[in-house]
């Protein structure tokens, strides 16, 4: 497991007081998957609630596994807008309002904002918050034998 370098952050969003990138662990993915298309990412104990871990190289653009309040979700690290590294963005609550000038916050830690243009996506569903027709690709992920396992391709497909 290696630490991501600040210089890899194309936007600078990861630096400074609101830095998120430095807290993202990156694991190099395999050049090819095993027959099942599965990849063991890390020990489950290493991915704490509120954390995320990025798998580079396993699929083009990479995949990131998020731990949201004990539940794991895996998203393609590629914003459908302009291809930004979506999963390196700021993690936020959902912000709504019931009256002008008022902010309401819920679903803490369940929204990621792409560092390129700050589009918001629901980490749990991959759904864009501003457009019901837009989603980012999700991957199945689970804890098996104390390890985080992500399924990077559908059964029967050879390519990742």
């Amino acid at each position: 497991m290696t630490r991501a370098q600040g210089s890899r952050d194309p936007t600078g969003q990861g630096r400074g007081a609101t830095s998120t990138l430095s807290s993202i662990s990156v694991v190099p993915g395999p050049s090819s998957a095993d027959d099942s298309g599965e990849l063991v990412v890390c020990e489950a104990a290493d991915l704490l609630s509120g954390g995320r871990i990025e798998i580079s190289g396993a699929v083009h653009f990479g995949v990131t596994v998020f731990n949201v309040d004990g539940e794991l979700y895996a998203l393609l690290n590629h914003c459908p807008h302009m291809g930004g590294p979506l999963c390196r963005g700021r993690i936020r609550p959902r912000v709504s309002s019931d009256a002008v000038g008022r902010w309401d916050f819920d679903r803490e830690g369940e929204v990621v904002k792409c560092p390129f243009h700050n589009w918001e996506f629901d980490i749990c569903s991959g759904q864009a918050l501003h457009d019901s027709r837009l989603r980012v690709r999700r991957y199945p992920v689970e804890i098996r034998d104390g390890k985080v396992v992500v399924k990077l391709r559908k059964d029967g497909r050879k390519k990742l």
Partner: protein
Amino acid sequence: MSAVDTERRTSDKDLGSPKIAPYLVDCDLHHLWHQIDDIFPYLPRQYVQEIKDFGPMFPGGMWTNMPNNHGYRIDQDVDHETNFPSFTVTEHMDRYDFDVGILTGGDIYLITATTNLDYAAAICRAYNDWTLDHWVAEDDRFRMVLAIGPNDPIQAVEEIDRLGGHPAVVGVNLPAGGRHPYGNRMYHPIYEAAERHGLAMVTHFGGEGVGANNAPTAAGYPTYYLEMRMARPQIAQAHVASLICEGVFEKYKDLKWVFVEVDTWWIPGLLDHFDADWKALRDYTPWVKQLPSEYFRKHIRVGTQPLEQPAKREDLHRFFDQANAREVLVYASDFPHWDWDEPVATAATFPESIRDEIFGSNARQAFKL
């Protein structure tokens, strides 16, 4: 004016032309006074005396406009004896067979820039009463927008409550020049009153950069009239952005807003950019719950005049598509000013498929006609 001119106009009228739309509405028909003395019977004695002593005390600027003829185009056959309402009926309403002409004022816009708010309110009350007695009474096809002094929302609301229920009153006039962008909540009581009476807000170019109002552009004061005219879309865009970001259409869900004489070319550019940025910044103004273009489509209409004049007609038609003209544009003539858009010639520039909406049904919906 010569007899030849009169004959020519008469002849034009007799020739007639197919009606432009089944229900034809002009959203910008200026009703002018001969001089401010016309409203003296409706003004408090103190202000009549002050005007006699000092003149109208309307703030003014150095922007020249065009030489005119008692406020009318120089080809129009008027003089100081002309009955303007009757002239407007003959030369405009009858000639083109308008079903409704919305009187949007003219001389009144500058009063919104005065620092004496009681004077502004009194002038507006007098102007509204004079409009009802001398214009609306002339022809039942006339409707009017109320003049108000926006810098004193308390008196503005009183005036809307006083006359907002009159069947000829269809809107409230908030000229584009002001002290704040119009989403500012200082103005919200005005919008609440307008919505309560089922009136549209109407923002016509005017009053910018004079008196207590802001400069016409954020870059400062234009020098020339031509230059000043190019400021209009900037001002309109600032008001549109403000109205949407401040949640005016979330608070006043039935409110319609009609911008008049502020150009139209900016509509698609502003909305494309607005939508794109909203996707990134939505969580900072979460009360803006929809795409800005959706609020625009539901609540805002824009007068056609002055209509863009690109070299190629197909460019204009492409623009109509981009601007969603079918839903958002309303025909406005600007009669009797020099830069008006003559109805038949203007109609010919629109595809027939969207003409009924732009020349009638959009305005009927916005103004509840």
